[in-house]
C-alpha cells in the first residue's frame, strides 16, 4: 500500500491526474492488451459480464475462452472497480454510421417575399412590451434573444406583476424543430404556443385576445404592417395572424454550431475531449432521447424513467394536459442545442450546473452512474452544441412608440376587458 502511494505521488509530481483506479485500469488494460476497454458497474455483475463479452473481445477470442469476461468481472468486482474508461486514442473520430441518429440544422437562408414581411412583423411583436397588461414585459423578457433565448440564471421567470411562472423558460432558439411546444407539449406548433404567455395571468397577463387586437388596432404602424404581411384577407388583424407572425419570426431562430460542421464531415470541428464526450454520450444512452436535428424536442419521456424521480408531487408534467395516468411525470425531452447557455436546468430550473444535470440524467434516466471524468467529458461535448446567435436577425426594430392617444385607448380597453381574465396559471 505504501509503495503504491509513493508511485502515485511520483506520477502526480509530473503533473498527471492519477488515482489508484487509473493504475488498476492500466494494469487490466495491459493484461488484456485491448485498447477500448470499458469497465463499468462491476457491482452489478451480469451487466458487466454482458458488456465484457459484447464489447471487449473479438468473436474468436470469445469462443475460445467463454469464461474470460466472467473471470474478468469477478476480478474487477473484487478489486472494487467503480466506473472507469480507458481510451488511449481520444482523437479517434466517431464512425458516421454511429451518428445516423443526428442531423445538422436545415439550411436557412434569409427570408424573402411575404415571409420576410411576416418575419419583420413577428420580430416587432416579439419585442413589444405593449402585449403585456401593464406594458412591462415582452416575449424577450423571459426568452432573451441575446442570451440564447432564456431568462439566464432564473429557475422560473417573473411575469408582469413579478409573480413567478410555473416552469423554467425554455429556449426559443431552435424551438421550431420540436414536435410540440411547452414542457408538457400542450401546444402543437410555435403559433399555438405564442398566444399562451400573452394571456397567461402570471406572465404577460392580457385579459384576452380582444385586448391584444385592440392594441394593434390602435397603432397605425401595426395596421399597415399587418396589411402588408397578410394582404389577401380583408381583416388581417386577427389573433391567428398575430401568432403566425411571431411563429414565422421564431422559425428563423436557428443556431448553427461546430456540431453541425462535424456532422457535415469536418472531423476537426470537435476537440479530442469533445469527441471523447460524444463517445461517452453515445455509450451512456443519452442519445436514446437526445437525438435528431435538435438533439431532443422530439419525444416525451418519463422524468425518472430508470429510477423514480424524488419529487413526484409538485409537477406531474404531461398528466396536466392529458389526465392520463400513464402520462404522470412525462415531459417533453428538451433540446440540447445551446444547453451550456440555457441553465438552470430541468422543468423547474432546480439544477444550476450542467455537470449536475448530466449526472442526474445518468442516474435517473439511463441507469448509468457516471464518473466525474465521464460527466466532464459529456459536458465538454455539450459545449460544442453552443451555436452562433444570429445577431442581425434578432436586431430589435427601431422604437416606434404608439401615439399617446393610442396608448390611452389601449389602457381603457384593458380595463374594460379585465373582468374576463382567464384562470389558467401555468408559466412558460
Amino acid at each position, binding site marked *: 500500500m505504501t509503495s503504491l502511494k509513493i508511485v502515485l505521488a511520483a506520477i502526480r509530481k509530473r503533473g498527471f491526474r492519477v488515482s489508484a483506479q487509473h493504475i488498476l485500469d492500466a494494469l487490466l488494460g495491459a493484461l488484456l492488451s485491448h485498447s477500448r476497454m470499458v469497465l463499468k458497474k462491476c457491482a*452489478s455483475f*451480469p451487466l458487466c*459480464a*454482458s458488456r465484457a*463479452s*459484447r464489447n471487449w473481445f473479438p468473436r474468436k477470442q470469445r469462443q475460445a475462452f467463454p469464461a474470460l469476461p466472467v473471470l474478468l468481472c469477478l476480478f474487477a468486482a473484487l478489486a472494487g472497480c467503480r466506473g472507469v474508461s480507458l481510451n488511449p486514442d481520444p482523437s479517434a473520430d466517431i464512425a458516421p*454510421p454511429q451518428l*445516423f*441518429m443526428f442531423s445538422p440544422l436545415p439550411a436557412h437562408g434569409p427570408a424573402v417575399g411575404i415571409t420576410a414581411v411576416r418575419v419583420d412583423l413577428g420580430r416587432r411583436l416579439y419585442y413589444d412590451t405593449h402585449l403585456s397588461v401593464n406594458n412591462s414585459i415582452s416575449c424577450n423578457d423571459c426568452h432573451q434573444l441575446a442570451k440564447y433565448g432564456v431568462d439566464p440564471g432564473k429557475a422560473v421567470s417573473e411575469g408582469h406583476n413579478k409573480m413567478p411562472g410555473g416552469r423554467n423558460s425554455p429556449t426559443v432558439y431552435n424551438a421550431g*424543430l*420540436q*414536435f*410540440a411546444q411547452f414542457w408538457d*407539449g400542450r401546444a*402543437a*406548433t410555435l403559433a399555438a404556443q405564442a398566444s399562451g404567455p400573452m394571456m397567461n395571468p402570471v406572465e404577460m397577463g392580457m385579459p384576452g385576445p380582444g385586448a391584444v387586437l385592440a392594441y394593434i388596432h390602435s397603432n397605425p404602424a401595426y395596421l399597415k404592417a399587418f396589411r402588408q404581411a397578410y394582404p389577401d384577407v380583408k381583416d388581417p388583424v386577427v389573433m391567428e395572424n398575430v401568432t403566425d407572425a411571431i411563429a414565422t419570426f421564431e422559425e428563423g431562430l436557428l443556431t448553427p454550431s461546430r456540431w453541425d460542421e462535424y456532422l457535415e464531415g469536418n472531423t476537426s470541428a470537435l476537440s479530442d475531449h469533445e469527441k471523447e464526450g460524444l463517445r461517452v454520450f453515445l455509450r451512456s*444512452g443519452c442519445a*436514446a*432521447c437526445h*437525438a*435528431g*436535428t435538435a438533439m431532443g*424536442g*422530439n*419525444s*416525451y*419521456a*418519463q422524468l425518472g*424513467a*430508470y*429510477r423514480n424521480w424524488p419529487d413526484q408531487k409538485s409537477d406531474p408534467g404531461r398528466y396536466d394536459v*392529458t389526465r*392520463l395516468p*400513464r402520462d404522470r411525470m*412525462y415531459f417533453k425531452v428538451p433540446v440540447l442545442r445551446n444547453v451550456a447557455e440555457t441553465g438552470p436546468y430541468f422543468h423547474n430550473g432546480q439544477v444550476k450546473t450542467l455537470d449536475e444535470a448530466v449526472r442526474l440524467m445518468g442516474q435517473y*434516466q*439511463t*441507469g448509468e452512474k457516471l464518473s466525474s471524468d465521464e460527466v466532464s467529458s459529456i459536458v465538454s461535448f455539450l459545449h460544442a452544441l453552443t451555436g452562433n446567435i444570429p445577431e442581425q436577425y434578432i436586431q430589435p426594430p427601431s422604437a416606434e412608440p404608439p401615439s399617446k392617444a393610442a396608448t390611452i385607448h389601449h389602457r381603457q380597453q384593458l380595463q374594460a376587458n379585465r373582468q374576463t381574465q382567464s384562470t389558467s396559471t401555468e408559466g412558460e
Partner: protein
Amino acid sequence: MRRIIWIVGILVVAFLVVMQFRQPDYNLSAPSANATFAALHQPDPDIQNTLQRSCYNCHSTQGKIPWYGMVWPTSQLLQNDVRQGRAMLDFSNWDNLSPEMARIRLLSSCRSMREGKMPLWYYRPLHPGTAPTPGEIDAFCAWAQALPTEPNTAQLR
C-alpha cells in the same frame, strides 16, 4: 464452529425470506389501443411477430415475467433491466415519439440486433428460440429503412 455455520445459515435464509416481501414492480399494464407501435405503424404481421417474440418482454408493458423475476435478488436485477430497456425503447407507448424519433429508435434497434447486442447475451439462453434470425433482422431493417423521413409534427392526444 458448526454452531456458527448454522446461525449464519439461518440468518441468510431469514434475510432472503424477508427480502421476498419486497415485491418487484414491473409496471405492467394493457397499453391503450391507439398508442402502440403496432397501431401507429401497422408493420407486416411477420415483423410485428418477430418484435413481439424477441423484444416485448423488456421493451413493452406487456412482457411476461418469469418466476425468478419475482424472487429477490434476481427480481431486482430484472427490474433494473426492464426499466432501462423501456426507457430506451417502449413499444407500448409509441405515441410519445415524433416520426423523427420513431425512425431513429427503429434504426437503432436494427443496429443493435445486427451487432448482436440485442437480445442481451444472458437473455438468449434463458429464453431459447426467441432471438430473431438473421433473415428476420434483415426484414425488419429493410422495413425500418423504408420509413419516410417526415419533419417533426405533433402527436396530440
